[in-house]
């Protein structure tokens, strides 16, 4: 009975330690924890960088079509910008954020209809305009998404 108890205890401890390591992996960027919106924006940044590389920088890839996986992921992510939970709970209170979100969504939809460099840069520009209002820190990173040739 006592031995069984020790085995159960050790098993739970191991599981517990494994889980805490997983937590460490997910909070590597921010030890304070990331909101749903912050994580989404990091994904959108990565999606956008991939799009830039696929459409404008890599000659060996088709210039008109994104991979289905990237397209679906991006489509899901950009639409979620309207609903994901932000770091600050009052972000959507005055409607300013939603205005910027709509501008961004419109520019993404325009880009997806016509994948030109101009439409791509307009999409990035709308990210910057919103960040100028709400979170200046990320702007230097987003600036690198512009297609500059």
């Amino acid at each position, binding site marked *: 009975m006592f031995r069984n108890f020790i085995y159960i205890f050790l098993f739970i401890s191991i599981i517990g330690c494994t889980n805490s390591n997983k937590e460490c992996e997910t909070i590597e960027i921010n*030890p304070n924890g990331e909101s749903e919106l912050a994580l989404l924006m990091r994904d959108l940044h990565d999606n956008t960088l991939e799009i830039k590389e696929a459409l404008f920088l890599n000659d060996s890839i088709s210039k008109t079509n994104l991979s289905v996986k990237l397209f679906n992921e991006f489509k899901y992510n950009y639409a979620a910008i309207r609903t994901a939970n932000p770091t600050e709970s009052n972000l959507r209170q005055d409607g300013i954020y939603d205005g910027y979100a709509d501008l961004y969504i419109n520019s993404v939809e325009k880009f997806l209809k016509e994948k030109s460099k101009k439409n791509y840069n307009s999409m990035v520009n709308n990210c910057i305009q919103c960040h100028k209002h709400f979170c200046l820190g990320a702007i230097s990173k987003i600036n690198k998404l512009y297609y500059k040739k």
Partner: protein
Amino acid sequence: MKKILYTLFVATIISCSVESNKGVFGDQNTTEEGKINGQELLVALSENDSVQVKVEATINSICQKKGCWMYVDLNEETEMLVRFKDYGFFVPMDASGNTAIIEGMAKVDTLSVEWLKHLKEDANAPQEEIDAITEPQIMYSMAEATGVIIK
């Protein structure tokens, strides 16, 4: 045997529940080797426009929204604003007062009114204090720190 079990149990609970605000943030290969202190950095910046450096300093405040910037004391009168490369990592919001070794390019920078207000907002400063900012400020800055060790 029961005592051993209880001790093991308590030790496990404690090790699981203590959340540390110490550690290496950003580049995990950041070391203390070659670090200088704040005063030495000030001397270096009086002779150069910018200095690639590892500086040891006390954290005096941290962004209370996300941990995306911090001020460190270079000496009793001078502080430096530290931000993190490509918004790629943040520091624990409760690490004010801790000693940090920060690696990156330090320089004298001009911070815009927009940025100064944003920093105050992140620090949860009163609105009057935010509204009172009307001019850019020249300050010591490390805009793209690559790694931070917090002790």
